[in-house]
């Protein structure tokens, strides 16, 4: 990076956007290679036994699987740029429809768990960092480690046995069938649609279904926030400007809140971006645990069907989403902290 290119925000953004292109290309190539070197014929793996040899051959021809690999590769790359993510082999529908029908569920789950993680994680991390080595610090750090160490499906299992069962909370799906049936689909995201409908019982039903999955996934990431905020508070409270503020007679608590905390937050924004990747992985497991009709659940179903088309399409979309979010986070970071641009 040359000195003239640094400093100005538009230039930084442009540079960062240009970097995204090779990144996406590498990931797409990787996905393509990994799924194509897998042994066996994808079409008979997905549909074998359900169609006769002639129909299988027709399907293969239609999907372009008889063409040379390099053609298939080119077709794949160019169709991704046209935002066409292919079709599934087993039930022969556009991957985009799968995304539309199931993406909303994943989105509402991940956003809700982010809220849980931030609300629980940041205050706990601040307390632990502020009172280093106190009993509170030990307990909070232990909680942080445990929440990271416990697999999602184990927390889900415990919540189902010890919370959902005694309280009679639902443990499967996004809503009761009656709610799904009555709410008008406007955005295809049930959580939004139900609020648009204004039906109080339906809203309650959806939130009741959301509670345990969001808590489960939220606890996973909140551990990361606790550690991060704690370490950053530790490091910033050792900084000179904090000492200077203290020397001016400002109380310890005020220094932590007003001076240290703001600077400790910058890495948190970066990590929110990185956590998004962890969150997607966690979402797959949470959806599986709570039978949540999201993309992750769909992905696992397609994998068990050995449906290459669907797996390739869904993974591609995840990859593009992750790269774009990290781009967004970097830009936000550059806006907040001018040092990042250099």
């Amino acid at each position, binding site marked *: 990076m040359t000195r003239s290119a640094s400093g100005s925000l538009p230039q930084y953004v442009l540079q960062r956007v240009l970097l995204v292109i*090779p*990144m996406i290309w*590498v*990931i797409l190539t*990787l*996905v393509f290679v*990994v*799924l194509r*070197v*897998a*042994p*066996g014929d994808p079409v008979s793996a997905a549909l074998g036994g359900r169609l006769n040899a002639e129909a299988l051959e027709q399907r293969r021809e239609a999907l372009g699987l008889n063409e040379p690999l390099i053609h298939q590769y080119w077709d794949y790359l160019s169709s991704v740029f046209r935002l066409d993510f292919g079709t599934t082999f087993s039930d022969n529908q556009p991957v985009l429809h799968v995304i539309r029908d199931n993406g909303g569920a994943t989105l509402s789950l991940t956003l809700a768990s982010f809220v849980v993680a931030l609300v629980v994680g940041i205050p706990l991390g601040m307390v632990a960092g502020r009172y280093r*080595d106190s009993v509170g610090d*030990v307990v909070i750090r232990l909680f942080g*480690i*445990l929440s*990271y*160490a*416990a*697999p*999602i*499906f*184990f927390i*889900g*299992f*415990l919540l*189902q*046995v*010890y919370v959902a*069962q005694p309280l009679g909370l639902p*443990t499967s799906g996004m809503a009761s069938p009656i709610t799904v049936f009555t709410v008008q689909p406007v955005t295809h995201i049930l959580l939004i649609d139900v609020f648009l409908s204004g039906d109080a019982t339906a809203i309650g039903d959806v939130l009741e279904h959301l509670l345990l999955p969001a808590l489960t996934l939220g606890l996973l990431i909140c551990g990361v926030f606790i550690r991060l905020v704690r*370490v950053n508070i*530790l*490091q910033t409270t050792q900084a000179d400007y904090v000492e200077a503020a203290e020397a001016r007679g400002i109380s310890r608590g005020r220094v932590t809140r007003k001076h240290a905390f703001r600077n400790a937050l910058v890495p948190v924004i970066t990590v929110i971006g990185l956590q998004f*990747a*962890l969150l*997607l*992985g*966690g979402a*797959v*497991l949470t959806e*599986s*645990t709570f039978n949540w009709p999201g993309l992750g659940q769909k*992905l*696992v179903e397609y*994998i*068990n069907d*050995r449906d290459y088309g669907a*797996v390739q399409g869904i*993974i591609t979309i*995840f*990859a593009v989403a*992750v*790269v774009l979010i*990290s781009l967004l986070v970097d830009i936000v970071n550059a806006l907040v902290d001018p040092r990042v641009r250099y």
Partner: protein
Amino acid sequence: MRGVLKLLAKPFTDTVGLARWMLVIGVVITAAFIVCAVFAPWLAPYGFAQSAVDGTRFPKAGAPSGEHWFGTDRLFFDVLSRVIWGARTAIEVVILSILFCVVIGVPLGLVSGYFGGWPDRILVLVMDAIFAFPSFLLAIVFSFLLTGLFGGSVLAVALSLTAIYIPQYFRVVRNTTVSAKEATYVEAARAIGASDGVIMRRYLFGNVVQSVPVLATLNAADAILTLAGLGFLGLGIQSTDAAEWGHDLNRALADAGAGIWWTGLYPGLAIVLLVTGLTLVGEGLNETLNPTLRRRRLLPVVMPARESTTEEAR
């Protein structure tokens, strides 16, 4: 021998208070699981896929009892035995994958960072792309491929874990190499005529692998979770080939509604304990090795008696 012992004891003697306790507890927990893994055939009361003894079937989903301390599951398997055998599977997979990571990642990073040029740039790009991708999803994709090639074996899962952790080793070693190769001692080595191979092996290697132990321990913790996650989704090791905690939890989930808690609780606790142990070791090592966090033990300083002042006072 004494040198090795001293090196091993260094993280303990260097730390104080909480950090030291965390390290000790972590080592104890991890060691306990390694003992379980090594001595599983002697420690476990039954085999991991054994559903009867002397021709009598175990109870189906029987509650914990004197015969079966942790109860039995729906497939008539003894839960305690599966938890102990599960330790063996987990440790096997983790050791294999960390071994592959170190054997491939460290030399790759060293050579790539040392020679630079376009191969280095391409490798960095590929590794960054892998690193940016959600690791669990990548593990799913790789195990999709590898279980197709090798079946649901320990090797297939270990290789999928290797694929997702390698970029970290590559990055760490490469970046330290890039900065270390400009150091004066490397220049001096080159001046006395050392070849590139010798410089990398004798001069750089020892300096760039310093952060690998911390990375390996933290990765080991993560690997246990990824392994269990794959098993939970049914993409890992099959339950008749080996005992695997994640897969057992998946089967236990179906019983959660019926109030059968023992089939899920114990494998889950095993995962939590082992991951916690490894994380504590990793964090403890990090606190001793990372200078920004380190708090060294203060050695008591004995001041000489202040004779002169007492004489003046007199």
